[in-house]
């Protein structure tokens, strides 16, 4: 154990000392008012259809339950490839997100389709395991074929002020990912304030995250529009400072098509059209897809849809 710590310290020393990123304080009232104001936009007809189809392509269709089986993952993958049986213009989704043991099943189903396989790792969802185990978790998931890794930060370290440790773990996880994209889950519901969210976002981006992500989906509150806005502004400032585009993934609690459209408005108004692509924006969701499909069918048929007419994944 002490050897592991020693080697981590040695590696950190190689990279030089940890320099805290410049973080600006968050105006809580402004952020909440702006997020609420942007949620008032009314998006209808052709614009709504275009927005919803984009939302489908941005979706990380997720199943993260203890009762997941290969069969369930296979049916989820089938839905990911062709969400609406009779309409090939809908989908495929951006990625399928599963636990490491389910990665080989998903890779097998999605081969050649362009749909990414994302895996949670680093002792998801708490992240409270020794770093060596967390890194091993990542390497195995990548070895199984995952090309996107969703890691969790050590919230305990973040809240106790051990920012160097948070930073260092992300750096090492990024190394362990190799070619795989790294999404860093901040678990904003446990961070307590927008200032900590902003700080954690800045640390994650400085440490090499390709995406920053709100939540595991295991903690309430999960993604909320204001918290997403704080993170989007962090991404914007990082882009101005470095020219590097970091992706954003709100996850957890996004269940309706209307919510999804409001998130797209937030992105458009904060980061612009460049981010309105599955390469830079994803929704982490499991029940959202069906609601989006129901709304698309509503627009096509003019009849309100029933949940019983759509597969449960």
């Amino acid at each position, binding site marked *: 154990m002490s050897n592991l710590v020693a080697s981590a310290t040695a590696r950190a020393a190689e990279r030089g000392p940890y320099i805290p990123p410049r973080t600006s304080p968050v105006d809580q009232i402004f952020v909440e008012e702006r997020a609420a104001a942007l949620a008032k936009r009314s998006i209808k007809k052709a614009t709504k259809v275009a927005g919803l189809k984009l939302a489908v392509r941005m979706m990380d269709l997720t199943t993260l339950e203890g009762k997941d089986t290969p069969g369930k993952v296979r049916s989820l993958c089938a839905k990911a490839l062709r969400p609406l049986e009779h309409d090939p213009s809908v989908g495929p989704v951006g990625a399928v997100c599963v636990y490491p043991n389910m990665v080989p099943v998903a890779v097998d189903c999605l081969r050649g389709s362009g749909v990414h396989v994302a895996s949670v790792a680093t002792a998801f969802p708490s992240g409270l395991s020794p770093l060596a185990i967390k890194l091993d978790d990542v390497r195995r998931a990548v070895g199984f074929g995952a090309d996107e890794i969703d890691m969790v930060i050590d919230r305990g370290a973040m809240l106790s002020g051990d920012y160097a440790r948070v930073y260092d773990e992300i750096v090492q996880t990024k190394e362990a990912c190799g070619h795989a994209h790294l999404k860093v889950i901040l678990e904003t519901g446990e961070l307590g304030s927008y200032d900590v969210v902003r700080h954690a976002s800045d640390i994650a981006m400085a440490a090499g995250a390709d995406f920053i992500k709100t939540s595991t989906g295991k903690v309430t509150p999960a993604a909320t529009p204001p918290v997403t806005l704080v993170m989007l502004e962090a991404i914007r400032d990082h882009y101005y400072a470095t020219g590097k585009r970091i992706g954003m993934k709100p996850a957890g609690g996004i269940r309706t098509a209307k919510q999804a459209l409001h998130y797209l408005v937030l992105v458009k108004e904060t980061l612009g059209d460049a981010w309105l692509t599955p390469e830079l924006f994803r929704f982490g969701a499991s029940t959202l897809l069906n609601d989006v499909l129901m709304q698309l069918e509503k627009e096509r048929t*003019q*009849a*309100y*849809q*029933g*949940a*019983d*007419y759509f597969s449960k994944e």
Partner: protein
Amino acid sequence: MSAKKKAADAAIVPSNGAAVPGRARVQKAYKIYIGGAFVRSESGRYFQVKDLGGDEPGLVENVALSSRKDGRDAVKAAHAAGAGWAGKTAYNRGQILYRLGEVMEARRAELTSELERSTGRGRDAAREEVLASVDRVISFAGWADKYQSLLASSNPVAGPHFNVSVPEPMGVVAVVAPRRPSLLGLVSAVLPVIVSGNTCVVLASEEDPRTAVTFCECVATSDMPGGVLNLLTGKVSEVAPHLARHMEVQALDLWLDDAELTRELETLAVATVKRVKKRGVAEVDFRDDRLAGLSSLTPFLELKTFWHPMGM
């Protein structure tokens, strides 16, 4: 109390609470009832209804003019309430409906005054309709734990099996309530739908939406879970087609004399194979107790038949 004092009191508080010099009138906004809450139409629209009788004929009040989306919200609430309502014991559903009768009985004066001013048919006719409505609610409360035994059957089959059929609720039923009588008609249309565990979205009488809303205030205090009965006021021809198309609505109960609209709704209902019950309202005698009979419940029940091997 002296005659003089009595007269003075009467002058301060007239029976309708209005027209006291110096007192601002408190008028009620008649809202729609969705998911156990009284809400304005999401469209923000309203229409005006005029008193035809009562203390102040000619008085105008605002009533919500429901939209397509109110219909959608109501179906959503009804669908969400379905499992809980159908899952209650029949006995408990009966208790809740009986309590609705109790609440209506206690608020008879209010219901009577609503009917009187909205219909202009006079106080006696209004009082009589309210009494009949309360009695009808009590009749249906009684049905809650009895119809099952009358409709279920043990069927003879050619094999060593028990074959049993039992009635089950269908789900969400959209009801177009009769234009008149606005209260007795509403009660006679809605109660047979919900007594068996269905939930409903009702389009209230266009002529007299206010009595229907006041009836919902009785529902709201009767322990009936929110979403079991949802009531929309406004134009039937505007909202009903969307309910007929809605894929989460299982049946339509049309108390409508408009043949053209009925045909349109029937046509729309085909896509989802909804059950459609058509009734001409003009020839119905709503005071006929047969409207509270077993046959009023059967249109909105499905029979589930199951087989069980003998000797096990």
